[in-house]
């Protein structure tokens, strides 16, 4: 689709500063991308370790390991770390690495702010985790922070709120950078409709972020003043309404879940054509579908609140709007399958993860559609059926796409080929165990097991044990991933510039690893 004429870097610039200061002060999109990815991996491991505590307590009925309050804070912080600490930063890291290389730009548009967006994060998450050591313990009201429960938190409460503010500021700045880079920094000839889909999906994700993170900031600010300044936003006695928080939260929260999946769509749309050796089917309809999903995501939020007692017209509206999202998402799935159709496919690790993504994300999408049916959601809501739904879209969706992207671009980034055999083993163990982990949760939810409980009745015992065993295996298999990445960064078979036979796009015209500054002279895209 695109070819670059010219110019690899021969601009003899001062390379990076040396040592730790290089990473702390860097304004280079690749360094910052690396920092984001590393940070995300650490958060994934900490958040995953918390999930292991959850699964260990749920291994069998009866209370064995942690007390209920701590269990609730494991659930809460697990979710906050995975969403705000692992998946979002991982996508931002990928954006940093890839967007300038894919559109032929020298760097991100606002490099110093780029550094700022990253370096707030370690501070934000330190604040969040520090609440565990405060009187009253960590946040335990669920990642959704519903008042009045969330207001019962102890001394950690303001730290939690400010941690969210800081993470939000980081995302907003990161998104501004992405938008401005894409709109202002494309190489000559790189029209919007020639851009790789990863850039497109990120552009739209960035809009979603800028539109919703400030709303979350507003919502948690109201929590803060309700607790400390005597306001009555969420207190009926003062004329407020606890449910109002839920509306504001989900106005952010629903677009947020698409923030967690749109960049994944972009990644899959890059990988599938490469390994099918065939151009992406329906490029422009992919773009329009992404935009439609983003638009719809703003008018479906109350599907998380079918049981709060909304007026019935509201329930109907949100039900219909939610169901509509299946249409553009379906377009995407069908386009990927059509891309594979009559291709000449090989199944290296990135492709395996991409195929796994398509199947298991779709399963998660199906359960999402079931949840969208309001009267049925009266049964599903707040059960493990919901937990199963969102882990299918988040773990086998978002996380799988990030794994796929790592395997796909790692040889480009490091110049070394990862260990293909180990990659395949990682894929197969993960895929088998993740289904052991999350598929039975559908059954548990349907059979009546509520979510966010540390102990349960004996009839749920068998499936919970299966799920926990699957969880331990899945968790352990991520060590293979970390090891593989580590090994590749350290060395390994040299990768070619193009890396993949079917790869297409500007980033593959650069050397592997690419020079410190990618396109100091803009390439001309034909």
């Amino acid at each position, binding site marked *: 689709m695109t070819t670059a004429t010219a110019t690899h870097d021969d601009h003899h610039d001062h390379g990076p500063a040396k040592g730790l200061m290089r990473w702390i002060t860097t304004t280079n999109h690749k360094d910052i991308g690396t920092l984001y990815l590393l940070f995300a991996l650490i958060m994934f491991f900490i958040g995953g370790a918390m999930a292991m505590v959850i699964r260990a307590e749920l291994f069998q009925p009866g209370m*064995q390991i942690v007390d209920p309050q701590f269990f609730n804070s494991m659930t809460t912080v697990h979710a906050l770390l995975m969403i705000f600490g692992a998946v979002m930063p991982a996508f931002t890291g990928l954006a940093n690495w890839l967007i300038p290389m894919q559109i032929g730009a020298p760097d991100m548009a606002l490099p110093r702010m780029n550094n700022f967006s990253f370096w707030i994060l370690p501070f934000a998450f330190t604040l969040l985790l520090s609440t565990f050591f405060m009187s009253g313990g960590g946040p335990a009201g669920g990642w959704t922070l519903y008042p009045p429960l969330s207001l019962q938190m102890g001394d950690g409460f303001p730290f939690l709120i400010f941690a969210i503010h800081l993470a939000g500021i980081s995302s907003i700045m990161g998104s501004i950078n992405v938008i401005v880079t894409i709109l202002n920094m494309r190489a000559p000839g790189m029209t919007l409709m020639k851009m790789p889909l990863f850039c497109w999906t990120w552009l739209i994700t960035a809009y979603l972020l800028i539109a919703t993170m400030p709303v979350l900031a507003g919502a948690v600010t109201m929590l803060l003043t309700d607790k400390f300044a005597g306001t009555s936003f969420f207190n009926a006695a003062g004329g407020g309404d606890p449910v109002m928080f839920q509306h504001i939260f989900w106005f952010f929260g629903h677009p947020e879940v698409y923030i967690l999946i749109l960049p994944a769509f972009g990644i899959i749309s890059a990988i599938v054509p490469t390994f099918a050796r065939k*151009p992406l089917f329906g490029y422009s309809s992919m773009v329009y579908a992404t935009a439609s999903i983003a638009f719809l995501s703003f008018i479906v939020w109350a599907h998380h609140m079918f049981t709060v007692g909304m007026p019935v017209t509201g329930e109907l509206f949100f039900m*219909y709007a939610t169901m509509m999202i299946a249409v553009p998402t379906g377009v995407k799935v*069908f386009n990927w399958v*059509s891309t594979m159709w009559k291709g000449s496919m090989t199944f290296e690790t990135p492709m395996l993860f991409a195929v796994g993504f398509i199947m298991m994300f*779709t399963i998660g999408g199906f359960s999402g559609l079931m949840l969208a049916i309001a009267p049925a959601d*009266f049964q599903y*809501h707040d059960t493990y059926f919901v937990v199963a739904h969102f882990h299918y879209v988040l773990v086998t969706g978002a996380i799988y796409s990030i794994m796929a992207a790592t395997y796909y671009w790692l040889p480009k980034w490091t110049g070394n080929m990862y260990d293909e055999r180990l990659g395949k083993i990682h894929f197969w163990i993960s895929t088998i165990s993740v289904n052991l982990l999350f598929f039975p949760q559908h059954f548990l939810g349907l059979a009546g097991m*509520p979510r966010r409980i540390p102990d349960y009745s004996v009839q749920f015992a068998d*499936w919970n044990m299966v799920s926990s065993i699957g969880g331990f295996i899945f968790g352990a298999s991520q060590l293979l991933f970390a090891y593989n990445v580590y090994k590749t960064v350290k060395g390994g078979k040299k990768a070619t510039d193009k890396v993949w036979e079917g790869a297409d796009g500007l980033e593959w015209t650069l050397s592997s690893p690419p020079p410190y500054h990618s396109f100091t002279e803009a390439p001309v895209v034909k």
Partner: protein
Amino acid sequence: MKSRIARGVLALTTGLLAGSALAEWDLLNMRKGVTSTSHEVHDLHMMILWVCVVIGIVVFGAMIYAMLKHRKSKGAVAAQFHESTTMEIIWTIIPIVILVSMAIPATKTLLAMEDVSDADMTIKVTGLQWKWKYDYVDGEGAGISFLSSLAPEHNEARLLGAGMDEAKLREKFGQTYLRDVDNPVVVPTGKKIRFLLTAADVIHSWWVPDLGWKKDAIPGFVNESWTRIDKPGVYRGKCAELCGKDHGFMPIVVVAKSPADYAAWVQAQTGAAAAEAASADKIWAADDLLAKGEQVYKTNCAACHQLTGTGVPPAFPALAGNPISNGDDPMGQITTVLNGRPGTAMAAYGPMLSDVELAAAITYVRSSWGNSGSAVQPAEIKAAR
């Protein structure tokens, strides 16, 4: 342990052969329940499930076929087509048609579920950390009111350090571990019962799967829902909205009785309530108060202040050794318990417990764990209200 794993493997294999007669269907799928609503919801669920399964088979079928046939190792040469407006239109229209055909029955069911008119009786349900309060507001049994919390044996077995594992729990409680309460809510069959749901502290959610719905109980607001149970039986459920530490230990038990049995139950209840009210006027012996107080304390207070009165500072203050539980003037303690401490987890127990129960609990607190406060008589509570 071995047998558990074996059972797990069995469950898994049966699960994989989903729906096979080996597995208890209840453990894999939504319950059919015992009301017309729950039946409709179940049918709706099955319909969407099958639609998704069929779409899944078509989409994954095509994909797997391509993966098997169109691979490089099989000598496949890549075609270069990458667009077809016709196809795009087809696979936009077909899902829309499918979705519309799902939306129609869903709308019908929803409208029926939200229609609370013409109820035969009304029960107000209040969620509290971590128990339920039931007030029979109108219809047969109006005036009955009681609290319902996790049955005490379960409450002890579920503590960390109780040394319970699955085998012991099965042996001790059979299938009902964490699913029994001290006072179940009793309702007649065949009557349309309107539920008013609210909460006193944080949001809870009242859910009995066999009735086919759950609804949130929100502090300061009242939600409505209804049910009509076809056949007598015991139907169990749980609080479904995270409500703090003991959210997992807030079960619901609905006992549906035939109208005649229900009438008898109402008789018995009103009799008991009258006796209780009468006993509030008499002077209680200290031992009786203490014995009753221990019971009341265990079910209502121990969740926070702990069985030994030590609390979990700083979240929940200790009552043992607390000045408020000692000395000759119990008024501070009486008003705290009657009115609660707004803005904290300490709820107002005045509207929830009777004079006798409150006097008993307070007396128990004031004379246990080394406390040496004066005893309190029901009459003092009545006066302090």
